[in-house]
C-alpha cells in the first residue's frame, strides 16, 4: 500500500508520495524575503527553522490566483522545501501495484507520471525535476 | 539490561525528581517507598541493584532501614540522600555501610555519576 497526498493547484490535481512529505502546514504567515525571485514567496518559521516557500503553481506556469494558505513541507537529507499549493485533499491509500502502473507522460515537465484514481487523474510530481528547477531558480538569482 | 533501582523518600516531589533523573540515566525504577519500613519490605520483594535512601523519614529512619537491609544482604548497594547540615548523619550512614551519599539540593549529573560508580 502506498499513501499519496493529492493536492490541487491551478485547477489541476497533483500528488506526492507521503514518504516524501514532512508535514502539511496551514496558515503559517509568509515573511518577506528581500530580493527573492518570482517563484519564491518568502519564508516561514517552521518550528524555529527558517524555510523559503516555493510558489508551486507559478513554477508550473499556472496563473497566480487567490491561494488557500496550504503548504506542503518536503525534506531530504540536505534541505527542506516548502511548497505553497491551492488545496490539499485527504490522503489516499493506493495499492502499490496500481501506483506502479503510473502512466508515463511526455508533455508535462515536472510530472513523473499519471495515476488514474476513481475517475480522476493525479499528476505525480517528479521531485528530482522540482529540486533541479529550484536550484536553477536560486542560481539565476545568485552569482 | 538496565539497573533496577528502589527509591526511598517521604516526599513525592523528591521521588519524582529522582525517578526522572535515574530514568534519564537509563535506569529502571522498580519501586518507591515512602518510609524506612516500606523500604525494607520492598527490598526483600524486589531485590534491587541499588537503593536511594532518604535519611530523615517517618517509621524507621533511613539509617535504620539501611542497617536492616544490610542485615538481609550485606552487599546491598544503598546510597543515602541527605540535606545540607546533616553531615554527622551522613557519617553515620557511611559507617553503617552506605555505598555513597548525595546531598540535596542535588544536580542530575552528580546523582548519575555517583549512582553509576556505585553500580560499576
Amino acid at each position, binding site marked *: 500500500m502506498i499513501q499519496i497526498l493529492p493536492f490541487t493547484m491551478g485547477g489541476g490535481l497533483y500528488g506526492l508520495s507521503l514518504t516524501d512529505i514532512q508535514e502539511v502546514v496551514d496558515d503559517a504567515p509568509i515573511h518577506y524575503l528581500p*530580493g527573492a525571485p518570482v517563484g519564491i514567496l518568502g*519564508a516561514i518559521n517552521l518550528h524555529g527553522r*527558517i524555510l523559503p516557500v516555493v510558489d508551486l503553481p507559478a513554477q508550473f506556469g499556472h496563473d497566480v490566483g487567490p491561494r488557500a494558505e496550504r503548504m506542503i513541507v518536503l525534506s531530504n537529507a540536505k534541505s527542506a522545501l516548502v511548497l505553497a499549493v491551492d488545496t490539499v485533499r485527504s490522503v489516499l491509500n493506493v495499492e502499490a501495484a496500481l501506483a506502479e502502473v503510473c502512466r508515463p507522460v511526455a508533455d508535462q515537465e515536472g510530472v513523473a507520471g499519471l495515476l488514474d484514481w476513481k475517475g480522476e487523474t493525479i499528476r505525480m510530481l517528479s521531485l528530482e525535476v522540482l529540486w533541479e528547477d529550484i536550484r536553477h531558480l536560486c542560481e539565476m538569482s545568485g552569482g | 539490561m538496565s539497573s533496577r533501582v528502589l527509591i526511598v523518600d517521604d516526599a513525592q516531589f523528591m521521588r519524582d525528581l529522582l525517578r526522572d533523573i535515574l530514568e534519564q540515566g537509563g535506569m529502571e525504577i522498580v519501586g518507591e517507598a515512602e518510609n524506612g519500613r516500606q523500604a525494607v519490605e520492598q527490598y526483600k520483594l524486589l531485590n534491587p541493584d541499588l537503593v536511594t535512601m532518604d535519611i530523615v523519614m517517618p517509621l524507621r529512619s533511613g539509617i535504620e532501614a539501611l542497617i536492616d537491609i544490610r542485615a538481609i544482604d550485606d552487599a546491598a548497594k544503598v546510597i543515602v540522600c541527605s540535606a545540607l547540615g546533616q553531615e554527622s548523619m551522613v*557519617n553515620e550512614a557511611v*559507617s553503617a555501610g552506605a555505598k555513597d551519599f548525595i546531598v540535596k539540593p542535588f544536580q542530575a549529573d552528580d546523582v548519575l555519576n555517583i549512582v553509576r560508580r556505585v553500580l*560499576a
Partner: protein
Amino acid sequence: MDMSKYKSMFLSETEEHLRNMSALLVAVENDPADRDGIDALFRDAHSIKGMAASMGYTQMADLAHHLEDFLADFRKAGTIDPAAIDHLLQGTDLIEEVLAEIAADRPEPDVSAFMFAAPQAEDAPQNEHRLRLTLRENVVAPGARLLLLMGVFSEMGQIAAQRPSMEELKAGGAHRKIQFVLTGSLSRATIEEKVQCYPEVAELSFSDPGDERAPERRKQDRRQNSLASGTVRVDTVLLDRFINLTGELLTTRYALKTALKEQDLRELGEGLGQLEKLVGNLHSQVLKMRMMPVSTVTGRLPRVVRDLCRSNGKEIELKISGAGIELDRSILEEMSDPLMHLVRNAVDHGIERSGTVCIDVLRTRSHVQLRIEDDGRGMDPQLLRRRAREKGLIGERQAEVMRDADALQLICLPGFSTVDRVSETSGRGVGMDVVRSAVENLGGSLLIDAAPQAGTRITVTLPLSVAIIKILLFECAGKLLAMPLSRVIQTQLLSADKVLRRGKQRVFELKGETLPLLSLRKILGFSSPQGPTSLAVIVMELFGRRVGLVVDHFCGHQDVFVKKLPPPFDRLRGTGGGAVLGDGRVVFILDVQSLLEQQR
C-alpha cells in the same frame, strides 16, 4: 512476615537465573573477554543471592554470594579463565541441587566445602604507593566522602599509615585531606584511573620512592577538529556541563510545575528567572562547543608560502603567533580563503625579494584580531588615489580631500587592483573587495596600514562568534527587514527640506560631507512612493562609500541568532540569512550591496 507465599515465585525466578547463567557461561567460555557476559553473570548471581537471602535460604544465599564475589575479580579484569568457568558451572549445578531440595521442602544441604575449593588468583607483584589525597573545597560532608574513598582504596590493596584514621573520620570534623600507604598489585596509572570517576577529588599525589613524575591529573585531550568534516569533537568536560545543565533544567521544570500547581507566583517568578539563567548558560556552552583554534586555518599556510617561494624564487619567512586562539567554526570556515589570499598578496606583491610575513592573532574581550603584516614595499596613498581616479571609482574632489589612511582602503573597492597583470597566484578569484566583504559579512572589519617602502599591515577584526548579533530592525513598504548594527554607521531622521539634489541624485549633508541618498523601496522594486514628511536614513558604507539608505521607519534593536538559509536557497542574493524574532516573526538580514550588484 510470611515468606512462604513467595516461594513458588522464588523457585521459578531462580530457575530462570540459573538457565541464564549456564547459557552465559558457555558463551563466555568461547569469548573470555565478553565483558557484558561477565557482567550479566554477576547480576544473575547477585539476584539469586538477594532472593535466597530474603527467603531465608542461607546456604543458597552464601553460595550465590560466593559466586558473585568470585565473579567480581573477573569483572574487574574484564576477562575470565577456563578454570573459573569450570568452578562457576559446578557452582550453578550446586545451586540447582539446593533448589531441588528447597522445592521438595527439605532442608538445604551444606555447601561450604565447595566454596573452599575455589581456584585462587595468582599472586601479583606488590607495589607500595604513598598517597596524598585532597578533596575539592566545595565537597559536602568531606569526612564521609573520605570514609567512602578509603573504602574504595582498601579494595585496591592494604592500607597503612593512614592519617586521619578511620576512627577520626567517623568521629566527624572537616577533614579534607588524607594520606596513607597503599600496598597492592595495582599500578599508579590504574589507581589514577579508578579515582577518575570521583570528581570530588581535587588532587591525588603520589610520592612513590624513585618516582620523579610530576603529578598529572585530568589532563584534557586537545581537540583536533577539522573544518572539512561536518563533525566536531567535543571535550568531555563540555559534555559533562551539558548533562549538568540538563539536570538543572529538569529540577527547574519540577519547581515550575509545583509552583504552577500551587499557584505560587513568587516561586513561578523565581523558577522562570532560574530558567532564563540556565538557557543563557546552555547557549554559551553550545557556542563554546563551536570554538576552534585559528590554527585550523593557518595550518596550511607555511606550506603555501614555501610552494610560492619555490615558484617565484623569493625568500620569505612566515611567522605565526597566537594560532591557539579560538574562534567560532563558521567564522573560521568563512575566513579560510580570505586569509589565504591576504598571505598570497603579501608574498606576491608585498615582498620583492626576501622578507618576513607575520600573522599575529590577538584576542580582546569580544573580538579576535588577525594581523597580516609584511616588511615589503608597502603602498603609496598618492598612487592609489590617482589610480582610483583614473578608474572612475572616485570623483575629482573626493580624491583631493581623501586622507592617506582612507586612500589605502581604496584597494578594497571592486575593480581596483594594485597590479595590472593578473598574477598567477593572487588577484584572480578573490580580490581585496571580496576579502573585505567576507569579513564584513561576519560582522568584522578590515583595515589597511601601509606606507611606501615600509611594509603593509592588514588588520582583520572579527567577532568571537557570529551566532548572536545585534540588528537594527526597520520597515520598508510594510516589510520588516534588518541589518547588523555593525554595518550601520548611524541612523538619522531627515526632514524633507534637508534633502538636496545634485543632478538626478538626491543627497544630504552629514558633518560637512555630502552623501547620496538611496531609496530602499526602489532597490527592492516597490513602486509606491513614500510620504515625504521626514526620511528614516541609515548611514552605511556601500562599495566603499558612505551613503544614506532611505527606509520607511526604524523598529528598534534586537539580539538575534542569524541562520543561513538551507541550500540551494543560500545562493539567493539580497540576504545574508534570517532570524526568528521573539514573537515568531522571521526577519531577513538585508544585503544591499549584493542586490545592487545584481541590478548593475
